[in-house]
């Protein structure tokens, strides 16, 4: 009996050690930073900044299932580059990270959330385009991603988007990458609820590729480098990620743009990247040219 107990115990220990290893690998090394919170910043009366600052809290929309950018951890707090950008902006308003209310936004409800004041800003791999600009305003871009393809490691037949013509490609229902791969490259779309849901069909070779923004795919490749790879390092679209806010709140938009420039010059932009997506994508990006309109 005693021998049995010890054996069980040692098994458990081994198991938890292995678990600890695999868990740290899973997070992709994503960590968080603690930006310095501005003390009693002053803003023009009546501006959105002033309202948020004096309220001492801000509602930020982000994704909860996007590795490296916005993903919810087991402790219930989202982590990722988008989250860091949100924290930096909040800090400039004098709001510490624990006073931020994170709301999950999915692709389908982002515009409505802003219009309805469910969130103050959205930092959620949110591509700036003209159709959306008619509904909401965008500060940024703070990052420029591009659409890419992910395939099984042993796949050699797909290296460029033209190769997927007539082949099964998995993407999220209703997303922009899904529309692009069908309309421009005539792939057969296999729709899923989330990008991570596409992984099993790819593994089982029921689809030939997964398509979405390169940074999201990079997160998957990082987790399972022995199973998947990017079809090519080249991207075939440009996806400038912006910070969504209420339409025509130009003052707030310009202010956020100024802050982004400051983050770039004081190094906090780079620091935020290195703490999160930088664990996978080694080359730290430069802040793209801002789209001030």
């Amino acid at each position, binding site marked *: 009996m005693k021998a049995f107990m010890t054996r069980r115990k040692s098994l*458990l220990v081994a198991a*938890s050690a292995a*678990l600890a290893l695999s868990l740290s690998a899973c*997070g992709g090394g994503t960590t968080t930073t603690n930006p310095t919170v501005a003390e009693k910043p002053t803003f023009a009366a009546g501006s959105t900044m002033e309202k948020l600052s004096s309220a001492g809290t801000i509602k930020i929309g982000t994704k909860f299932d996007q590795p490296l950018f916005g993903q*919810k951890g*087991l402790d219930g707090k989202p982590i990722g580059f988008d989250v860091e950008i949100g924290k930096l902006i909040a800090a400039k308003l004098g709001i510490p990270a624990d006073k931020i209310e994170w709301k999950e936004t999915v692709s389908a*409800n982002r515009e*409505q959330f802003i219009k*309805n004041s469910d969130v103050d800003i959205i930092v959620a791999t949110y591509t700036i385009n003209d159709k959306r600009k008619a509904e909401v305003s965008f500060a940024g871009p703070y990052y420029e991603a591009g659409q890419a393809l992910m395939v099984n490691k042993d796949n050699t037949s797909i290296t460029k988007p033209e190769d997927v013509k007539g082949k099964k490609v998995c993407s999220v229902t209703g997303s922009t990458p899904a529309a692009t791969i069908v309309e421009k490259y005539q792939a057969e779309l296999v729709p899923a609820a989330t990008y991570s849901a596409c992984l099993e069909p790819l593994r089982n070779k029921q689809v030939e590729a997964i398509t979405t923004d390169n940074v999201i795919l990079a997160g998957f490749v990082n987790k*399972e480098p022995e199973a998947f790879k990017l079809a090519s390092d080249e991207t075939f679209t440009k996806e400038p990620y912006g910070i969504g806010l209420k339409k025509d709140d130009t003052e707030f938009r310009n202010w956020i743009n100024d802050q982004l420039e400051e983050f770039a010059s004081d190094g906090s932009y780079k620091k935020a990247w290195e703490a999160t997506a930088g664990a996978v994508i080694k080359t730290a990006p430069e802040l793209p040219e801002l789209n001030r309109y």
Partner: protein
Amino acid sequence: MSSVLYDVPGPKARRVSLIGSVLGSVLILGLVAWIITTLAEQGIFQGQRWAIFTRGDVWSLLGNGVLTTLSAAAVAAVLAFPLGLLLCLLRISDIAAIRIPTRIVLEFLRGMPVVLMMLFVLLVFASGAFTAVVAGLVLYNAAVFAEIIRAGIQSLPKGQREAGLTVGLTSFQSRMIIELPQAIRRMMPSLVAQLVVLLKDTSLGYIVSYEELLRKVQIMADFLGPDFLFPIFFVAAAIYIAINIVVSRIAVWIERRGTVKAAGGVAKAEPEPIEAAVP
């Protein structure tokens, strides 16, 4: 009832039945064994994959998911039942101007996918995820409740209503005092079965990113990585089935209590109305 369908089996029939039972059981056990070994070959039963369930944060997340699932279901059920009752009364109204529009509304609500209603509420009314989930569930299940109660009322002997009207009750009073209580008691099993459907349908909240159990599980699986996908989903399925079986058992218990009571009252001359829950 089933014993009426066939003779009491003799020794030969019993032997055949026993052999059949054994063969069937072996077949099913074999299938289960094959599934388990195939999955085991892929390392699904490796200890480390299940060791996550020794972690407190995993369970607190699961517990949280159960809570959000139950709260959405509870709010939806509490709202759907009175609304269903109201729709039912309007549907069987003596006045055509009320009856016919109600019928159209019911037909519409029953014909809509719940996910579509949830998405519609979320996008068009720009509501939060919780409101969208609850609204979708309430609209659909109120319509089903209305139909179940109506079926219950129609299964009552005509004499019930006639007697009510004869002693001077108005049509509405007869419905409320005489017919509804009996109908609801008769349809209790179906109503609770529908409650289980409602509870399960909270999982459709993924469409509006409501963080119920299944969504929480998905987020957790995404975070932990593909190795943990299977263990987490198996546990989630087990939790769902356990909760629903408990609810169903409560239904059976209520049903038994109901029949004991009814036995002393109205004779069960009419056949029982049939199970009407819809998935």
